[in-house]
């Protein structure tokens, strides 16, 4: 069997996820190159490919003019993977969607607000069909390898579907609510080893909601810790604007 050809593409993003892809141990890189053939990766190589089997896409769609490029990639790819929160759920890019286009254009380009084409930020799956995603802002390098290998072998991606809290408790952290912070861990997909609450932060939802989030449990938390509903929703704004369960429009 010949190795599948893999190509990377990016839209509106910080390229942090592609950098995480490059953050491999030498053995991991050689190992990965045994199962796939990287044919396009603008960050690291100059070649540009005409054909590929797997397209890995970083970034959100924020311009209509980017849609034909994305569709072309979709047409050529057998498997299309959304890489990271920007591609998977819109991520930080969608925070601007809470403002009108006039508002955000004027805030950044006061002298020529309409100079650059833009529109609301969207996840890749809102524009074309996505076959798998690798969550996170940024992604986890080991999870990237795992998902890609599984897909190459024709298996399911193999992502966990339980909340961050479970990993957090396993790490024996003091819940950050007790420290006066807010945390979205109860409804967010694990797999990051509760990276933020385990390292002095709180979960702000970069890996997206689990399949059956108990959004009502958040209400109990609000009561227990004397928080307002607005404050709670404000945290969801950071990464989850595109989620209809959280922000029905």
């Amino acid at each position: 069997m010949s190795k599948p050809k893999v190509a990377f593409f990016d839209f509106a993003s910080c390229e942090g996820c592609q950098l995480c892809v490059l953050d491999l141990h030498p053995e991991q890189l050689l190992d990965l190159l045994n199962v796939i053939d990287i044919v396009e990766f603008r960050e690291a190589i100059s070649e540009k490919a005409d054909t590929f089997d797997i397209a890995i896409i970083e970034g959100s769609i924020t311009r209509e003019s980017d849609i034909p490029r994305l569709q072309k990639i979709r047409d050529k790819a057998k498997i299309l993977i959304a890489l990271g929160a920007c591609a998977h759920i819109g991520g930080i890019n969608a925070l601007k969607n809470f403002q009108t286009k006039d508002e955000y254009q004027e805030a950044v380009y006061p002298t020529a607000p309409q100079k650059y084409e833009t529109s609301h930020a969207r996840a890749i799956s809102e524009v074309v069909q996505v076959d798998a995603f690798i969550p996170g802002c940024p992604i986890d390098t080991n999870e990237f390898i795992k998902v890609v290998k599984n897909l190459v072998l024709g298996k399911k991606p193999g992502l966990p579907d339980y909340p961050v809290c479970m990993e957090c408790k396993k790490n024996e952290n003091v819940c950050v609510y007790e420290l006066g912070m807010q945390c979205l861990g109860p409804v967010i997909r694990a797999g990051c080893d509760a990276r933020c609450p385990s390292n002095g932060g709180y979960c702000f939802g970069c890996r997206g909601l689990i399949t059956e989030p108990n959004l009502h449990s958040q209400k109990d938390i609000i009561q227990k810790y004397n928080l307002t509903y607005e404050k709670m929703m404000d945290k969801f704004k950071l990464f989850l604007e595109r989620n209809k369960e959280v922000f029905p429009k």
Partner: protein
Amino acid sequence: MSKDVKIDIQHITRVEGHGNIKIDVQSGELKECKLEIVEAPRFFEAMLKNRHYDESALITSRICGICSVGHVLGSLTASEDAFGIKISEQEKNLRCLMNIGEHYESHVLHIYFLAVPDFAGAKSVLPLVNTHKDVVVRALKLKKLGHEIGNMIGGRLIHPTAMRVKAMTKIPTPEILHDIIHRLEEAKTELKKDIGILKTFIIPNFERETEYISLYKYGEYAFLEGNIYSSDIGETSYKNYLDITNEYLVDHSTAKRAKHNRKSYMVGALARFNNNHQWLSEDAKTIAADLGLKAPCYNPYMITIAQFVELFHLADEGIKAAQSLLDNGVELENRKFTIKPGRGIGAVEVPRGILFHDYVYNDQGYIQKANCIIPTGQNLQNIEDDFRALVPTILDKSKEDISLMLEMLVRAYDPCISCSAHILNVEFE
């Protein structure tokens, strides 16, 4: 000379972000000379509006993956400037280590993955796995060291989780600090093995003197605090950063000459080296001399060499910082402080040059107005001015060679176009 050359490079590869180069020479005369930015704008300053001070670093770090620690440092410094917070020695040392982690990741990626293939005549680092495996393995390990320092000190290098206003929310154990010292020493030994390779690089013989701008603090090779220094006019308070950057923007839109009498300036490793070289560590100075890097250096292709030299200095700084943390003991700081309404400015050096964050807070600690000025944005006009100076001198070369030299020039600046897109009106005629 009656030479016609038309060059149109779409999506320059091996840089961060999307940019195009367009050159049009008719009968030996330069008609068009453009570095186009085609990256989608992301509107970060707008996103920051009405966000809490505790989120400003979290949001702005996502401007750019490769400079994420730099954005966090710029952001925290701006908030601390607004609230009148002085950070502790311990905090300075921990931030210094994070900054070193980021520079290792970024400089190593640039030197080995983006620049070396050009000099080795390869399209990427991948074919070098076969021809120069030891170098590739070394590069991956050195880059990984950056990530690992980030993980150990800040929870993660790309978008760190533990860096907060006033103080880190995580502290390293003595074992970790010993490990970092050991590995930075090892890194210097490893880097020395590649001096030979760097010496074989045929650096294009091109010089164009320009204005060099960097952070400046007497006695230090400044990264994390200080004023602004211009090789033309000397020191300016960081508070007046708009005098430097604004002039530049005005220059673009009205075509008026700025008072510096320059159209453009350079920021980044070579600007830092030119302005602050006397405060490099002894080892770094030796390496610079060995590689023929002498201040003032006017050859932009030497930026890569300046970055290599900085890796030695940074290793020495990191060893000092970790040692000081070991000597003085590390304990979790109490983060309490008072929020004050008002404006704060942060100026820091990130791998690609000086970065400014500028916020106005209300009395509840929510951002009312934000401005971020990114190094690549500051360099773009300078790159284009280099093009103008360079192209007429290389017209006798083939179109392929001219294209490669221009791409190499852009890559030498290590531009991070994904950062710059949202902030600058890049308009070349």
